[in-house]
Every structure is written in structure tokens, then in C-alpha cells.
């Protein structure tokens, strides 16, 4: 028994390791290799031509790519921050509710079950310039006379996409922050009030530090899946109008499957992978730091 023990976790993790190696790691190595080739789908023989880092160099000087990259980072920054704030607000609203909290919690989770592709579709429908709910409502209320070209004008389309993105992911923050709020002991808040803290001070120095790790768990989960914005953009605008909402991921898909330039697309894909990893590692570290800070509680 004693000689067996150290290898038990290894054995238990082996299946996971095998599957992930076969489906993720090895294919990624393959795609790393092919990012050094001029591989085109239409010309299979180009797979064996080695051209070094030429793909990467041409990406670095490609303005379209940098626009898409910048736009992706901008979208993620806006979306993640707003999701966090709105999630916090929503969680506090629901926590205050004295009656029907269970129903409110269920409703709050509602957007989570929507697949991103559905979220994209539903907002494409709502933001449609001609028959969409948003324009219909604005026109009926007399706020605007002309239809607003939500998905047709570049900036507006970006805003519409951000709204869709935020709508779909605020729930995960709200749920986890709410879990934190509910798990929080009430005594420190009362003590703070007795000591004469303003509500803001109570929130800032008592509630927030306690809830923070939960927010970071949400951030970590969320950052695992940042690329889901691809689905939303794909169905809402497909990168249009004229590439104004092109994100890193739609650009990769376009380069690979529409233009058939696999080598180039793989090189771009590596940028997107590094971006995702950067987000995840960042939040993972934040989470670890937040955890040690409050250590004792959980």
C-alpha cells in the first residue's frame, strides 16, 4: 500500500491527461508547426514548406490584425469591468430583497443558460434597425424619429455587441458575488455601523474585501471562456460592417476558412491563445492573492 500511494493521483489524473494531450496539446503543437509554413487548404504540399517566422512578421505589420487585436482587448476590458460592476449591483439588489429571493435568484441566472449563439441571435433581432424591439420602442416613445442603424454603423455595432456580451455574462458575477454576500457573517457589518462607519465605508472596508475572492472566482471562470464573444459577433455582424467589429477570433476564422490561409491563421490563433492565457493567469494570481489575504475565513 505504501509504495502505491504516491502514484494514485497520477493514475487518477492519467485519463484527463491523455484526453487533453490528444485533443488539445498535440493539435496545438501541430498548429504551432503549421504557423511556420505557408500552408493553404487548397495546396496541401505547402504544409511541408518551412518559412520560419515570416507569418508572424507579416502579422506584426498587418494593420487589420492590430485593429482586431485592439478591439478585442477593448471589448474584453469594457465587458469584464461592466459585468463585474453590474454583477455586484445586481447581487446587492437581490440580497436586499426580503421576499421572493429564490425566484429572483433563478431569474438572475436566466442569461447563463443562453448559448452565446442564441444571445447573438436574440440581440441581432432586438437591434434590427427595421423590426427590432429597441428601435420600435425608441420610435414609439418618440425619442427618435429615424431608425437607428444599430448593426450597420461601426461604433453602434460595437456597442450592441458589448451589450449582448454583458447581458450574457453578468449573471455569473452576480451569482458568485451573491454567494459571497450570503456567506458573509453579519457581525462585522453591525460592528462597523456601531463604530460610526458610513454605508459607503462599510461597503468599502468590510463587505468588499470579503466578497472580493468570489468576484475573482467569477473573473477566473469568465476568463476561461472569453472567446465566446466569437459566437456572438459571428451571428450578429460577422465582423462587419467593413470589418468594423472584427475581433481576433473572427479574423482567425476568416483567414483560415474563407481565405484558406491556414498557416497564417494558425499564427494569428497563437496570439489569441496567448491573450486568453494572459487573462486567465492574471485572474488566477489575483484569486490566489485574495485568498491568502482573507485566508482564515475559507
Amino acid at each position, binding site marked *: 500500500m505504501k509504495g502505491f500511494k504516491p502514484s494514485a493521483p497520477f493514475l487518477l*489524473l492519467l485519463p484527463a491527461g491523455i484526453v487533453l494531450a490528444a485533443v488539445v496539446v498535440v493539435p496545438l503543437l501541430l498548429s504551432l508547426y503549421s504557423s511556420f509554413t505557408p500552408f493553404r487548404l487548397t495546396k496541401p504540399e505547402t504544409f511541408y514548406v518551412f518559412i520560419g517566422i515570416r507569418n508572424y512578421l507579416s502579422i506584426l505589420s498587418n494593420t487589420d490584425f492590430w485593429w482586431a487585436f485592439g478591439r478585442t482587448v477593448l471589448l474584453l476590458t469594457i465587458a469584464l469591468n461592466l459585468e463585474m460592476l453590474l454583477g455586484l449591483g445586481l447581487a446587492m439588489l437581490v440580497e436586499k430583497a426580503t421576499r421572493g429571493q429564490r425566484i*429572483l435568484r433563478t431569474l438572475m441566472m436566466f442569461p447563463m443558460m443562453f448559448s452565446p449563439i442564441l444571445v447573438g441571435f436574440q440581440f441581432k433581432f432586438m437591434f434590427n434597425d427595421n423590426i427590432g424591439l429597441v428601435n420600435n420602442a425608441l420610435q414609439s416613445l418618440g425619442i427618435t424619429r429615424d431608425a437607428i442603424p444599430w448593426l450597420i454603423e461601426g461604433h453602434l455595432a460595437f456597442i450592441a455587441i458589448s451589450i449582448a456580451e454583458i447581458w450574457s455574462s453578468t449573471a455569473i458575477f452576480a451569482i458568485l458575488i451573491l454567494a459571497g454576500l450570503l456567506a458573509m457573517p453579519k457581525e462585522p457589518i453591525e460592528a462597523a455601523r456601531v463604530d460610526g462607519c458610513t454605508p459607503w465605508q462599510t461597503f468599502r472596508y468590510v463587505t468588499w474585501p470579503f466578497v472580493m475572492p468570489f468576484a475573482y472566482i467569477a473573473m477566473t471562470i469568465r476568463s476561461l471562456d472569453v472567446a465566446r464573444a466569437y459566437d456572438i459577433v459571428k451571428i450578429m455582424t460577422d465582423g462587419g460592417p467593413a470589418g468594423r467589429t472584427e475581433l481576433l477570433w473572427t479574423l482567425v476564422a476568416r483567414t483560415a476558412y474563407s481565405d484558406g490561409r491556414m498557416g497564417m491563421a494558425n499564427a494569428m490563433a497563437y496570439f489569441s491563445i496567448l491573450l486568453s492565457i494572459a487573462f486567465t493567469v492574471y485572474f488566477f494570481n489575483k484569486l490566489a492573492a485574495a485568498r491568502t489575504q482573507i485566508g482564515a475565513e475559507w
Partner: protein
Amino acid sequence: MDENSSARLKRRLTGIVYRIGLFLAMLTICLPGLWIVISSLRPTVEIMAKPPVWIPQEISFDAYVAMFSGIGKGGIPVIEYFRNSLIISVTSTVIAVAIGMAGGYAFARYRFRGKSSVFLGLMLTRTVPGIALSLPLFFLYVRLGIIDTHFGLILAYVALNVPFTIWLIDGFFRQVPKDLAEAAQIDGCTRWQAFWQVEFPLAGPGIASAAIFAFLTCWNEFALASQLTRSVSAKTLPVGLLDYTAEFTIDWRGMCALAVVMIIPALTLTYIVQKHLVGGLTSGAVKG
């Protein structure tokens, strides 16, 4: 006016503002979904109407009938897509949960070197964007001849789900006190028996929620499915939804109906899972 009554007034005002805020928040959350359901039940003329018709004048299930009556009637093969989605999601969920249980148990019950880096490594495989992963998988699958098959997509989805399943299941095993299994072992159980008879039943609800979560991930996945499937034989519902936009005129009502079909299983399952999900996420392997 004395201080008392002004404080009371202020309190009442805050209450009203709070109610309005809550109402608006819930409205924003629910309205898009409700609008889809309503639109799927009203005739296309009403959807297109200018000025808009707010209250549906007549309710019809035509869109659903058309959708399930096959390709001939201008619908898309929803039944096949539905079947594909179901087969792929269920199979890959079962496999992913089996693998995830083994992995989660390892994280929850054993100490080993490099534990947190192994965990981070697992999570990092999950961060690879679906579209980036689809490039080499597409190439490999074509070579192996498993493109556009159930098997290919199941394989991909198992890998997609394993990391997160491990995270969740780890959390649920942690909530089961270690002493229980030890007590069982002292009473003469083997570790294997102790696991199945003590720890597994206790972590059962949590594992079920992890399974549902994995199922939903498969059910909703689009980026990989859209590249790794091409025909009716393996396309899933999210890819099918895009079929509607490929046409020049978008059939809004049909899309809404399909959206409702997609959302109902997800809705039911999430409702079941909600209680345990949060517990698993917050007490998971992030606890070192």
C-alpha cells in the same frame, strides 16, 4: 417638520428607488428571452409590422409545425439536429464526468508535488479559444476521416469539459469530510468501497450538477461545431440556427422558434442545477 418624519420619508423614498431598480434589472434580464418566445408565436406579418404591434393579436404554432415537418416545407432538419445535439452532448458528458471524477478525487484527497501548477495547466487547456483549436483539429480530423462525425465532436467536447468538470467535482469532494471515508476504511472497507459507498453518494448531487454543466457546455457550443461538422449527419442545433441566416431573407419567426427549442432543455437543467453549482465553484480546487 421634525427630524423623525423626514427620516421616515427618506427611508420610504429609498425603498421605492430600490424597488424600481430591482424591477428594471429583472426586466432587462427577462425581456430579450420573453420577446423571442412571443415572436415565435405570432405571425410574421406582425413581426414585420410598421408601426409595431406590441400586443400579439393572434397566437399560432405554425413556426413550430413548419420546423418539425422537415426540409420540404422550408424548414431546416431540426429533428436531426436535435438528435445530433442530444447524442453528442450526452455521450461526451458521461465520459467527461467519469474522467472528471477521477481527476477531481485526486485533487481533493491527495497531496502531490506541483498540485497547483497541474491544476493551472488543466485550466489553461480550457482557455484555448474554440476557434483557435478548431484549426488543427479540422486538419487532423480530415486526415483521420472523423470530420463531420459524432465521434469527432464527442472527442473534442470531452476535452473541452474535463478541466471544468475536475474543478467542480474537486469542490464537491472537498465538502465531504475526509473522516467519513477513513471511518469506513477502519470498519473494513477498501478505499475503493469507501469511495463508492460513502463519498460518492454524498458528493452525488454535486457531481450531477457538474454533469449538467458539462451537458450545457456541449449543448451550447458553437465555434468548434461550426467547423468540425458540415452536414445533417453531425450538425448540432447552434450550427443549425445559423442555417437560417444563410438565406437572404431571415426567417425571424422560424429562428425564434428554434431558439425556444434550444433554450427549453437548458432552462430546465439550469433550474435543477443552480443550488449546487455555486457551492462547487466556490469551494473548488482554488482553495489550494
